[in-house]
């Protein structure tokens, strides 16, 4: 078997760099990459209180581990973990147990919020309700879950006094979202991507929406999993029973391309980052004014926000 440059047994062959890496050099390369991503985009500033969105899945556990490694000893940076219990039987409780254990081990303060408490029902109940209404009413469960989760995470981060909201989105998540936004022609959503979510378009937004940061956006999903495994991180790897929709077809397409052309996901991301300023310029000119939801008071683009339309109607 091939060895790392240090002579130790390799655990990974990074095709797009043409090098074999042992446990230590593989881990160091991931940590270096995350630090570089953070520095390059100026994701973290002195005095930041960072809310870490942790579900207990591998990517959020790796993100928590990396952020704690980089900022855990910095007296000027504070970390707090936030989880959302969507109420998915046989799935979420188990993953939140993993998140709790990791936070306890690292000594990171941890808060859990739930769909049941916030919206009066779980995602399981919502899906059952929608199925009863018939096909015309049924959107993908991921739509309800994503909208509800983002809403709760933003509000929780604000209530906890966080200045940043950090997620474990990896390179695969980012490239899937880029292609999906193109396919849907959703420029407003594309304009909010990038390493730091840009809420500078309206000053009010910056106060209501907590800027989101993604330190793992240049780390491929597979390498995130290998990092978790070689560092002995406990992680929950079961799939959500409600998964569906176009994302999974896009994911398979990108993985097929990635196995044929190594490094192609990086190219998708780099190209997107280059044209992002143009997308933001276009959206700025066309964008509707930010309104406060008449029902819950949270920010949105309509008189009633999307969360209230989907969850409180």
């Amino acid at each position, binding site marked *: 078997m091939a060895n790392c440059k240090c002579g130790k047994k390799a*655990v990974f062959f990074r095709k797009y760099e043409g090098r074999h890496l042992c446990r230590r050099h593989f881990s160091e390369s991931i940590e270096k990459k995350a630090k570089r991503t953070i520095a390059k985009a100026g994701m973290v500033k002195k005095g930041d209180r960072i809310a870490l969105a942790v579900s207990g899945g591998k990517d959020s556990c790796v993100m928590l581990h990396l952020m704690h490694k980089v900022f855990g000893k910095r007296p000027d940076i504070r970390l707090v973990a936030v989880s959302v219990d969507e109420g998915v039987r046989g799935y979420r409780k188990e993953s939140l147990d993993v998140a709790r254990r990791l936070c306890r081990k690292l000594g990171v303060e941890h808060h859990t919020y739930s769909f049941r408490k916030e919206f009066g029902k779980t995602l399981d109940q919502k899906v059952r309700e929608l199925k009863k209404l018939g096909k015309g009413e049924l959107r993908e469960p991921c739509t309800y879950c994503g909208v509800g989760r983002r809403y709760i995470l933003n509000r929780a981060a604000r209530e906890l006094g966080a200045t940043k909201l950090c997620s474990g989105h990896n390179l695969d998540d980012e490239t899937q979202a880029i292609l999906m936004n193109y396919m849907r022609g959703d420029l407003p959503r594309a304009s909010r991507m990038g390493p730091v979510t840009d809420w500078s378009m309206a000053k009010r937004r910056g106060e209501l929406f907590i800027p989101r940061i993604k330190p793992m956006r240049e780390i491929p999903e597979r390498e995130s999993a290998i990092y978790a495994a*070689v560092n002995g991180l406990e992680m929950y790897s079961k799939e959500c029973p409600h998964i569906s929709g176009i994302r999974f077809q896009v994911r398979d397409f990108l*993985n097929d391309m990635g196995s044929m052309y190594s490094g192609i996901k990086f190219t998708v991301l780099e190209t997107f980052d280059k044209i992002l300023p143009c997308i933001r310029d276009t959206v700025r000119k066309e964008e509707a004014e930010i309104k406060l939801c008449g029902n819950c008071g949270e920010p949105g683009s309509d008189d009633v926000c999307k969360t209230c339309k989907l969850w409180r109607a």
Partner: protein
Amino acid sequence: MRVFYSGKELKAGYRKGMSVEGLLKSLGINPETVLVKVNDEIVPDDCMLDKEDNIEVLRVVSGG
């Protein structure tokens, strides 16, 4: 050679000079979506296999 994919044993034929990547391709598994342990150790895709190996293929792509 015994191969387990997400806990289930798969039927896989051993060929001399077969690599992890070759095995995955023969099983129709995209290497981008898994990590592979041979005799309990994580190995790179170009690792050569032995007919006595115990191989564990773990799915790593997220699903929600």
